Every structure is written in structure tokens, then in C-alpha cells.
């Protein structure tokens, strides 16, 4: 059965998710075989290749914005979920407190340390392995072992140290009250974490740029006063966001659908100005009605030459606040929506890897899942 061509109007109707004042319409994907009689929606790699496209909007190491066009939400969502929860990163997992006389409790300080985003030489990070998982049956013994840090080797654990003591500064003026002048080391920052290379790690994390270090050196960890000491040893291991948010490489990874605004019948004069104010700057522009438009007999713009009318400039900037749907003068004149298969991704890396690499990694992980499970499936088919 040859697929019947669908009209451009029908194609557009299917492509747009409607956004009304209180409801949404046309939400569910319908591009499945058998949904529309006589139409072919069979998966075809050629068709996908033809329809799928990428647009890049921004590519900073900590913030990438790009559009994936021609995907289904289920696939785009898989990428997003993997970005958040399944890309392995390095974070502090164990803190051994030798001495802590600061007012920050040990466990609070440990939780703070875990959340500090670390970075290092990329090839070194890839070289690093996971700490062997504890088998389920001897979890009791293993827990104890883990607490002692056993099973840790230079290939799976990175050691960091934090040794800092607050002292009175020398030569303080009488009546000085500024803590920064009164004390030395009164603020403990992430930059005070010191990487202690173990075994072959110095080769994989070379000085000075490749060492394991916090992404942002100025994260305040604790405050001290003279005589107070913090002396810690930390083990950083690889983990994934599903286990703990500190392992998530993004903060955050999100997508939104490209908004659409259809001005069904013209909005003119002061209404046009008010209409433009319903949207963020740059979304709606004002244009003068031209002579040609005004000369069309029986047209909606007949005799309106020279008046201002609202035109859609850039829907990318729109937030779909639906403000314009609250005003009676625009009733029936405008239709809001979103493009079903245009995903504007925003990936903000915490700094361990570049944002664009993270996305590619998420695609690779989805593929790897399929490879492994296909192998599992082959076993039961045998």
C-alpha cells in the first residue's frame, strides 16, 4: 500500500502541540504504523537521517545550547536522563577526619566536600576505573572493608588532603576588626584541597594542569578562628548521578520545545503594541501595513495602510507565558503552540567535562546499553 501524501496543513497540525489558556492539545505522538490508515510510519533510517538535524546556538564549556530537530520525545528524554544520571564522574566519596575543631560538624563538612565539582586531565579521568562493587551476599563484611577504604588502588581512587589551621595574623593594628586582616586561613576554600598522586597517577594526572582539582577554587568550605584546625584525608571515586547527585556531571541538563505563535487575524495599532508587550523582547515586532496589503479588496487589512501591525520575529526567545491569552482584545486572533519534534537542549556542565562532550557521551551510553542488552537477549534466544 503506497503511503498517501498528506496535506501541508495536516502535516503542520500534527507537528504542533497546542497551548491554550488552561489546556494543552495534541500532546501524544501519533507517528506509529497503523495509527493513520494508509500511511506508512515504519521506522526507516533513511527517512530519519533525512529529517533529523542539529542546530547549534551556543557552545561554551560550561553551557551548551543546541536544537535537535526531528526526534521523538522518548528519545530526547533518554538523552536528557542519561546526561543527568548515568554519565560517570569523579567526586569525593569518603572523608577520613583526623582532626576537626572547626564549628562545622564532621558529617556536614563531609557532605559539602562531596558536592565540590572536581576536574582533572581528561585522559586521566577516562583511565580511572570504578571501585569494585561489593557482592550482595557478603555486604556485611564488605561494608566494613569499604569503610576502611580497602579495595582502593591507584587505578580507582584519588586521594586528596585538606590540612589547614587558622592563626592570628602578625602585626595587627589596634582596634582592627576585619577578619581577613586579623586571621590567617580563616576561610577554607576548595583551592586548599591538595591532590596526592598515588602510584601511577602522577603520570595520568600530570602537573600542573592535569592534576585533580576543584573546578572552582573559590568555593567556601568552612570558616575558622585562631586555634581551630581541619585535617582530613579524602577518597574520590567514580560514580553516577543515579547513585548520588554529586556524581551528576550537569547542573542541569534540560530541554524545551520550540514555541510557535500564529497570528490568525491581524493585530493593529495600539493593540499591536500591547501584544508585543505580552512577550519577551524580540519575539514580536511591529511593521507598517504596506500599500499592497491595504489595496487587497475585501482583505482584512483593506484601507489600513500606514498602521502598525504585530508580526512574529523570533519565537526562540519566547517563554510561552500565555500572557496574551489573558486579554480579550486578542481572543481568536492568536494561537500558541510548540513544535513537537524541535528540542532545544541546554546542557550546563559542572566542569569536569565540556558540555558538548557530555551530550555525545550520553548518546554513546544509550548505544552501549543496547549493545549489552542485545547480547543478553541473544543468550535467551539460544
Amino acid at each position, binding site marked *: 500500500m503506497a503511503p498517501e501524501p498528506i496535506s501541508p496543513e495536516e502535516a503542520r497540525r500534527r507537528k504542533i502541540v497546542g497551548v491554550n489558556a488552561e489546556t494543552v492539545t495534541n500532546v501524544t505522538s501519533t507517528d506509529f504504523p497503523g495509527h493513520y490508515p494508509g500511511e506508512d510510519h515504519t521506522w526507516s533510517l533513511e527517512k530519519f537521517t533525512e529529517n533529523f538535524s542539529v542546530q547549534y546556538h551556543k557552545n561554551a564549556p560550561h553551557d551548551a545550547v*543546541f536544537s535537535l530537530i526531528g526526534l521523538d520525545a*522518548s528519545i530526547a528524554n533518554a538523552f536528557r536522563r542519561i546526561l543527568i544520571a548515568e554519565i560517570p564522574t569523579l567526586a569525593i566519596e569518603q572523608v577520613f577526619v583526623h582532626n576537626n575543631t572547626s564549628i562545622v560538624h564532621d558529617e556536614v563538612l563531609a557532605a559539602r566536600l562531596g558536592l565540590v565539582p572536581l576536574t582533572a586531565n581528561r585522559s586521566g579521568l577516562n583511565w580511572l576505573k570504578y571501585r569494585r562493587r*561489593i557482592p550482595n551476599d557478603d555486604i556485611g563484611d564488605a561494608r566494613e572493608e569499604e569503610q576502611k577504604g580497602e579495595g582502593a588502588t591507584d587505578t580507582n581512587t584519588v586521594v586528596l588532603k585538606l590540612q589547614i589551621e587558622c592563626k592570628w595574623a602578625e602585626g595587627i593594628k589596634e582596634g582592627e576588626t576585619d577578619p581577613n586582616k586579623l586571621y590567617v586561613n580563616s576561610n577554607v576554600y576548595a583551592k586548599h584541597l591538595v591532590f596526592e598522586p598515588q602510584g601511577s597517577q602522577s603520570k595520568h594526572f600530570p602537573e600542573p594542569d592535569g592534576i585533580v582539582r576543584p573546578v572552582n577554587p573559590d568555593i567556601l568550605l568552612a570558616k575558622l578562628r585562631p586555634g581551630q584546625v581541619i585535617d582530613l584525608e579524602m577518597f574520590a571515586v567514580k560514580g553516577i548521578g*543515579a547513585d548520588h547527585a554529586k556524581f551528576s556531571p550537569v547542573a542541569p541538563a534540560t530541554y524545551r520545545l520550540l514555541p510557535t505563535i500564529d497570528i490568525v487575524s491581524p493585530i493593529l495599532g495600539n493593540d499591536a503594541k500591547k501584544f508585543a508587550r505580552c512577550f519577551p523582547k524580540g519575539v514580536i515586532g511591529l511593521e507598517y501595513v504596506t500599500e499592497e496589503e491595504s489595496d487587497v479588496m475585501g482583505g482584512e487589512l483593506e484601507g489600513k495602510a500606514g498602521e502598525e501591525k504585530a508580526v512574529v520575529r523570533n519565537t526562540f526567545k519566547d517563554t510561552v507565558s500565555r500572557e496574551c491569552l489573558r486579554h480579550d482584545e486578542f481572543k481568536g486572533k492568536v494561537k500558541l503552540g510548540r513544535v513537537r519534534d524541535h528540542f532545544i537542549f541546554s546542557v550546563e556542565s559542572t566542569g569536569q567535562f565540556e558540555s558538548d562532550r557530555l551530550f555525545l557521551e550520553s548518546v554513546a551510553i544509550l548505544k*552501549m546499553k*543496547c549493545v549489552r542488552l542485545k547480547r543478553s537477549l*541473544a543468550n535467551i534466544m539460544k
Partner: protein
Amino acid sequence: MPTVVTNEDHPMENAPEAEANVGTNVEDDYIDLNDQRIRVLPGASETAASFEFESEDHTLGNALRYMIMKNPQVELCGYSIPHPSEAKMNIRIQTYEGTTVYDVLEKGFEDLMSLCDIVTDKFTAERDKFNAKQKA
């Protein structure tokens, strides 16, 4: 009343105790690569079966469901996560005559993999183009 009642219910087993690492075993290297992570649930036939995936969630469930539904030989495909504290995902597949659920599931994996390749290629190309333009 029949005198002999065959019990078709399967008793529910308790989860192993002290499951301290629930959720952490999703990771590739955490689990043995030879682990059998797919199981066919009881009551399966060649054209209708439910598969249980260990350590998978909506990430793969929904994506795979979409790819399988794109196959015209499939009558029904759906997925569910029966219980939120068990890291398990079930996929139900029913096919028309002439194919098997196993072939359909395998094709689902293959299609998803080929999709990933296209996404990677196009993304890389577009990013490099964008970077070159920014530099210029």
C-alpha cells in the same frame, strides 16, 4: 466448584535483606558484563511476551518502546516499572503472526543503535561547523 484447583499464582518473594546498594548497580563496570539482565516472564508465547530488564528504567524503557512501536509487525508494545524501589523494568510486546517477539525486540535494539550513530554524526558535524564559524 471444581475439586482440584490449580494454583496459577506465583508467590511473591521477599527482596533480599540489607540491599544497601539498590540503584547503584546501574553502572556498566559495577555489574559483570556477562550478567544476564533480560528475563522472559511466565506465560510467554512466540508472539506475545513480557520481558523483565534488570537495572533499567524509563531511560531505556520509553525509548525502546517507541522504536518497537515503529515496527509494523507489532500489535502492541508498552513498558512499566512495577515497583519504584526495585530496579526493574518490564516491556510487553505482542506481535502479529509471521514474526516473534524476540526478533522484534532485537530489531528494536538495532534501530535504536543506528539512531544513536546518526545523532552522533550529525551532532559532531554541526558542532564543528559552529566552532569553526565562531573562530572565524
